[in-house]
């Protein structure tokens, strides 16, 4: 059955184009952006970092094309489930989706840790206090979510504007105040060679990642086209902001400052001394607002919906009195805190492992999106596509290959050195997700079907058997006689 299409036209409150742009930009511009930009600079000559980001931005536009087409076909918050389960076996789709979802845990954990570390640094507090700040930040995020508090649209838009504009301005001022001209702005292979450049592009993709999460707002935009147009503009804004950031970091920071957990504070200090450091600490906290707001809502609602369809344990679908799925919210907070504790305990460049894992997973999901576009063009050639990629076969195949390579490259490199740790983490997460989808999900669905079958009889009254309803209209064969006990199939559909 083809999905009935509707838009948000006629809604009292609907998301406009500026909100779509700021949501897409804000979801990508997390606190982890600063560390990823600093990491990128260690791979490529600092003044040429913008070239890596340009190439990564062009690749992000490929992903934009894929998500634009897929979101146009399935303009719903559940789009990722719908297009993946159409394009491939549902169990494979679930395993990939669960693995992808873990990116949100990593990003939330990393952001909480980064903000905590930045606060510890500017307050000159002992390092162990980072754990306390992290706990407080995640605690506030969890409680706000449980109480159904969501940052107002204007607040989100303002936070994104402040974060991007302040970061860009501080970056430019830091370069100007260094009183040293850019030395190698056009030599991306100057210091590290092609392999380093490739790794920097892989990391650069991570700087754009999550711009596509705005597709979960497809049901609330005034015009469906706002989503893919908003994503396009967000990629351009991210290119400008992140290029300025990376070039400035490479130009004015030392290697020791670049590999710290708060390179943005040193950048602020280079621009405006102590005042700049405090400013960047504030901006870092502001970026966390969007991550916590968007990350918690996206992840918890997705887990809730998956539990409701019977693919996750029923307790994950429990709602509190504010209609918030409290188990996923608390679980996400606890899991993020544990991950950030591990990062703190391991120390050193542990956060760079998170960046590498996140970069690899994002590249992986972009490759999956390319595959879905190709597959759906084949099996659903006549489906309505408001946004179509031109030359889809070469473009999608190119995206599939390039993102696969980038994902692999990102997963075996940490701090410009070969390291299989990120790949190992991804392999473990993927194995757990696959085992769950193949072994546990069928059991859960069978249990749900049995539970539903044990319910009382169908409540809907029977229709007149003669085929005419009381008002004289023809009835269907839906309920010709008083039904017996329910039978529920694996999808949770009831029948009598």
């Amino acid at each position, binding site marked *: 059955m083809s999905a009935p299409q509707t*838009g948000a036209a006629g809604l009292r409150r609907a998301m406009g184009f500026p909100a779509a742009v700021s949501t897409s930009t804000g979801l990508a511009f997390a606190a982890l952006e600063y560390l990823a930009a600093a990491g990128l600079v260690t791979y490529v000559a600092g003044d040429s970092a913008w070239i890596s980001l340009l190439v990564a931005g062009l690749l992000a536009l490929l992903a934009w094309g894929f998500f634009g087409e897929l979101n146009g076909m399935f303009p719903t918050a*559940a789009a990722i489930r719908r297009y993946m389960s159409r394009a491939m076996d549902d169990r494979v789709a679930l395993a990939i989706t669960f693995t992808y979802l873990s990116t949100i845990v990593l990003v939330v954990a990393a952001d909480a840790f980064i903000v905590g570390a930045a606060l510890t640094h500017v307050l000159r507090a002992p390092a162990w206090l980072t754990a306390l700040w992290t706990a407080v930040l995640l605690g506030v995020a969890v409680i706000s979510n449980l109480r159904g508090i969501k940052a107002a649209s204007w607040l989100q838009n303002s936070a994104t504007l402040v974060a991007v504009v302040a970061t860009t301005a501080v970056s430019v001022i830091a370069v100007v105040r260094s009183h040293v001209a850019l030395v190698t702005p056009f030599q991306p292979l100057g210091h590290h060679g092609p392999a380093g450049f490739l790794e920097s592009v892989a990391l650069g993709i991570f700087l754009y990642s999550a711009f596509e999460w705005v597709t979960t707002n497809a*049901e*609330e935009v005034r015009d469906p086209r706002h989503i893919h147009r908003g994503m396009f503009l967000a990629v351009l804004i991210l290119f400008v902001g992140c290029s300025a950031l990376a070039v400035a970091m490479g130009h004015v920071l030392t290697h020791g400052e670049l590999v710290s957990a708060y390179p943005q504070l040193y950048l602020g200090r280079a621009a405006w001394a102590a005042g700049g450091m405090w400013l960047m600490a504030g901006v870092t906290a502001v970026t966390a607002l969007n991550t916590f707001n968007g990350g918690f809502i996206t992840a918890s609602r997705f887990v809730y919906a998956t539990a409701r369809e019977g693919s996750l344990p029923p307790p994950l*679908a429990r*709602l509190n009195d504010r*209609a918030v799925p409290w188990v996923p919210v608390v679980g996400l907070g606890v899991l993020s805190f544990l991950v950030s504790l591990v990062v703190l305990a391991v120390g050193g460049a542990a956060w760079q492992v998170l960046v590498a894992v996140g970069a690899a997973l994002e590249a992986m999901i972009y490759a999956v999106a390319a595959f879905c576009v190709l597959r759906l063009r084949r099996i659903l050639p006549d489906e309505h596509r408001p946004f179509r990629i031109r030359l889809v076969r070469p473009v999608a195949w190119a995206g599939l290959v390039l993102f696969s390579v980038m994902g692999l490259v990102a997963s075996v490199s940490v701090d410009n050195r070969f390291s299989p740790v990120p790949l190992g983490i991804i392999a473990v997460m993927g194995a757990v997700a696959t085992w769950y989808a193949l072994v546990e999900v069928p059991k859960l669905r069978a249990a749900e079907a049995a539970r539903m079958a044990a319910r009382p009889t169908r409540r809907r009254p029977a229709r007149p058997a003669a085929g005419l*309803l009381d008002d004289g209209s023809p009835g269907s064969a839906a309920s010709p006689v008083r039904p017996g006990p*329910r039978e529920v199939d694996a999808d949770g559909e009831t029948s009598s």
Partner: protein
Amino acid sequence: MATDAEIFEAYGDWKSRGNANPRLVRMLRGWDRSVHLVASDTGSEFTLEVRACVLGDLVSGRQGPADLIVTASSEDFADLFWGDLNPSVKYQNGEIVLAGSSEDVMRLDALSMVAFLDQ
């Protein structure tokens, strides 16, 4: 294909059960909304209002601006209001289409869950 009369009857049952459910009343606190229902197969349109934690009557046609718009087949609306259908599965399949903010969608889902599971 369900008639408008069947949908009204189903909604009446849902409303009675919903308004008598103390948990649902708590969930509706502070959620005054106007919801438009559109039957994709018959073209019938309805409006339901939630005011002061109470589900109001179902009215034919679209009355004023909506906070949420739900599009589904008439059969699905009838089954949903009788509590015979898990709307999540239909939503994931794209057979129920929603327009509105994610918070409003969650509240509506909570309403349907109460009906479906008799919680």
